[in-house]
């Protein structure tokens, strides 16, 4: 008998239709996988009950080891044991020069742009190493959930650039995981605390891990988190606390000798354990005994605070800088979320609380909070929640549109629309017998295509020939959760289709987006004028073209010379107006031409009907009605 989980009212899925999705916190030091079961997000342990998987991969003679097993061998087999691979993600060979000098790995000098680490199993890239970590987490999830995974939400630091994000996605694909989306780590932490459904405002995420510190200032607005600023220190964390305490022990012992590597390791382990205990008790006894080294003594909470205060102050400085970058003050901050194991240290909580002048949120295990948030998001994206509970986490920064006749940009998805989103619009042909249509995808707020950014062009060809306006072409714009735009065009009668994928944000910096937005404000009235003018010009062209076609067909037959002259005169006037730049006078000229043609149009219609009915009796039509 299968084991069942509790569903939300009315949401029970049929057997074999569970949609299991997980959240993965792919960390520098440790990784975690979490999922939502019975409405509760929880991290998943391995067979030994460990939730944290050390992000360490060892290419051993017997195969690949990930996690604890690899950690144990890091010391004896350093060149085949890869730690902190996250720091290498999405980096080019050139970026790694400085890193390579301080790391034990042998980087291959391959001709490819992607740096590879030389191991006994061959050269491996950072993506491949990360994929091993993800594979291990995936196996854990599948064993726990006993079902197929729909996909995963993987978290990345807010400061990750496109290349680093892409590398993370590549690693997931290599591990056989379907990435529902990448989520910023601070956003995940905020989601875990349910802040996405809370009050709108500024939220600070203080993330102090083992070896890195990140501060992110987010703004929640209409259910969307916007990253206002990020800051931190990639070489500051709980390990530095341990180091400082270890040095203190060494100093207290009075030992003058240069400590051996193994003594340093032992001291750090003792320091770490003392630090962890001091989160619960006021004072700990420490005893270090090895070879010719012996020290016994005690460390109080306040002593430790004095020791590590300079380090915590560095994080506070970074917080201050980030607030300034975000152009907000501590009073604007509604909530402070604590992430990372080192935020268990009481001195950290106190100093952060003092700085932001509010009690930081600590109720969720700070090691797990990011994974929990990712799991909640994965659950929603997998479709396990009703639509109205859909989390809105990202918006489109600039409108996405299509070029229409006259070089006008018709917006299909407006800026600030939350993603994922799909919008369709129907277009038709402009000329009789038209069998192809060019689709030009543009981005921006301006009315004319020339003022927007061109993203892609493609043609939809070979649909059946019809009179203008009779063909229906549905153009669909779809933006997935990662901001990837897919534009497809489909002629509805023949089913002919064409599509293209683009990454709208690619190569655009925030300041460029801002410039584009500001331009659209500055040129708002010009743009409106241009749009109206172009619209009238296109309309004028269409009217003239239709008139010419009609005159050619039955003009001689249905019109007197005088009538014909009048129409010709109005036609010339319209063409003159069209050449000018006054939308109103074009509009008036179109009206004049239309009224000059009114009788002609009526006569054409009558004659068409007469032709159509010739040889048929009225009864036939009446009969049709009765059928």
């Amino acid at each position, binding site marked *: 008998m299968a084991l069942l989980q509790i*569903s939300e009212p009315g949401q029970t899925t049929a*057997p074999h239709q569970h949609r299991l999705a997980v959240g993965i916190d792919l960390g520098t030091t440790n990784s975690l996988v979490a999922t939502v079961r*019975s409405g509760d997000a929880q991290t998943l342990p391995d*067979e030994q009950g460990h939730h944290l998987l050390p992000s360490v991969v060892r290419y051993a003679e017997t195969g690949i080891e990930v996690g604890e097993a690899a950690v144990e061998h890091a010391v004896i087999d350093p060149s085949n044991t890869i730690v902190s691979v996250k720091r290498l993600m999405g980096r080019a060979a050139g970026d790694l020069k400085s890193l390579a000098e301080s790391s034990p790995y042998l980087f291959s000098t391959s001709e490819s742009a992607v740096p590879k680490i030389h191991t006994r199993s061959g050269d491996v890239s950072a993506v491949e190493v990360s994929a091993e970590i993800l594979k291990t987490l995936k196996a854990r999830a599948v*064993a726990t959930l006993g079902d197929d995974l729909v996909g995963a939400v993987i978290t990345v630091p807010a400061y990750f650039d496109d290349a680093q994000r892409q590398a993370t996605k590549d690693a997931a694909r290599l591990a056989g995981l379907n990435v529902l989306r990448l989520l910023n780590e601070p956003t995940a932490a905020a989601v875990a605390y349910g802040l996405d459904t809370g009050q709108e405002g500024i939220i600070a995420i203080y993330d102090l891990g083992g070896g890195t510190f990140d501060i992110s200032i987010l703004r929640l607005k209409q259910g969307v988190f916007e990253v206002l600023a990020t800051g931190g220190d990639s070489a500051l964390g709980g390990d530095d606390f341990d180091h400082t305490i270890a040095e203190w022990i060494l100093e207290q012992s009075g030992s003058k000798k240069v400590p051996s590597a193994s003594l340093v390791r032992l001291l750090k382990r003792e320091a770490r354990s003392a630090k962890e205990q001091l989160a619960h008790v006021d004072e700990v006894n420490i005893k270090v005994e090895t070879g010719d080294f012996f020290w016994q003594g005690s460390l109080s909470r306040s002593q430790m605070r004095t020791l590590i205060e300079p380090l915590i102050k560095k994080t506070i400085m970074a917080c201050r800088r980030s607030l300034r970058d975000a152009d907000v003050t501590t009073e604007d901050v509604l909530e402070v979320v604590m992430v990372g194991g080192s935020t268990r240290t009481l001195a950290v909580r106190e100093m952060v609380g003092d700085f932001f002048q509010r009690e930081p949120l600590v109720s969720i295990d700070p090691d797990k909070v990011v994974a929990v948030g990712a799991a909640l998001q994965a659950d929603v994206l997998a479709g396990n929640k009703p639509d109205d509970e859909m989390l809105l986490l990202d918006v489109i920064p600039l409108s996405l549109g299509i070029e229409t006749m006259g070089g006008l940009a018709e917006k299909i998805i407006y800026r600030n629309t939350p993603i994922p989103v799909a919008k369709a619009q129907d277009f038709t042909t402009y000329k009789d017998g038209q069998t192809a249509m060019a689709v030009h995808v543009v981005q921006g707020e301006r009315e004319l295509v020339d003022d927007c950014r061109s993203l892609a062009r493609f043609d939809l060809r070979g649909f059946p020939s019809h009179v203008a306006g009779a063909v229906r072409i549905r153009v669909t714009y779809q933006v997935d959760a990662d901001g990837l735009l897919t534009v497809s065009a489909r002629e509805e009668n023949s089913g002919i289709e064409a599509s293209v994928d683009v990454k709208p944000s690619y190569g655009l910096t925030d300041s460029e987006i801002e410039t584009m937005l500001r331009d659209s404000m500055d040129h708002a009235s010009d743009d409106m004028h241009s749009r109206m003018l172009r619209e009238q010009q296109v309309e004028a062209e269409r009217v003239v073209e239709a008139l010419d076609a009609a005159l050619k067909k039955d003009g001689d037959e249905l019109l007197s010379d005088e009538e014909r002259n009048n129409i010709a005169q109005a036609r010339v006037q319209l063409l003159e107006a069209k050449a000018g730049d006054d939308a109103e006078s074009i509009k008036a000229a179109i009206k004049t031409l239309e009224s000059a043609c009114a009788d002609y149009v009526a006569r054409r219609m009558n004659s068409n009907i007469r032709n159509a009915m010739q040889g048929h009796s009225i009864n036939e039509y009446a009969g049709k009605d009765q059928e």
Partner: protein
Amino acid sequence: MAITLTEPAAERVKGFLKNRGKGIGLRLGVKTMGCSGMGYVIEFVDEINPDDEVFENNGVKVIVDKKSLVYIDGTEVDFAREGLNEGFKFNNPKEKDQCGCGESFTV
């Protein structure tokens, strides 16, 4: 007859309800679905309907609609752990046969 929750199951349900922040109990039932005809329903309850029966078990309200009760009367729901997986288990005396995966059953 009645529906019962074992103590471990009841404790779990209480925990989940507390985390969820709302809900008055646990709905058990059946739905015609799956490869062997019927599947179990196990959901949180925010509202009790007129045709529901309510059983109180180890401090948890178990709510079953009258139609489902015919199929699951006498069932004991347990919380079990199998390897890395954990979840709720229906011990239904009326169950005759299950599909291979055990997610659906016949009576």
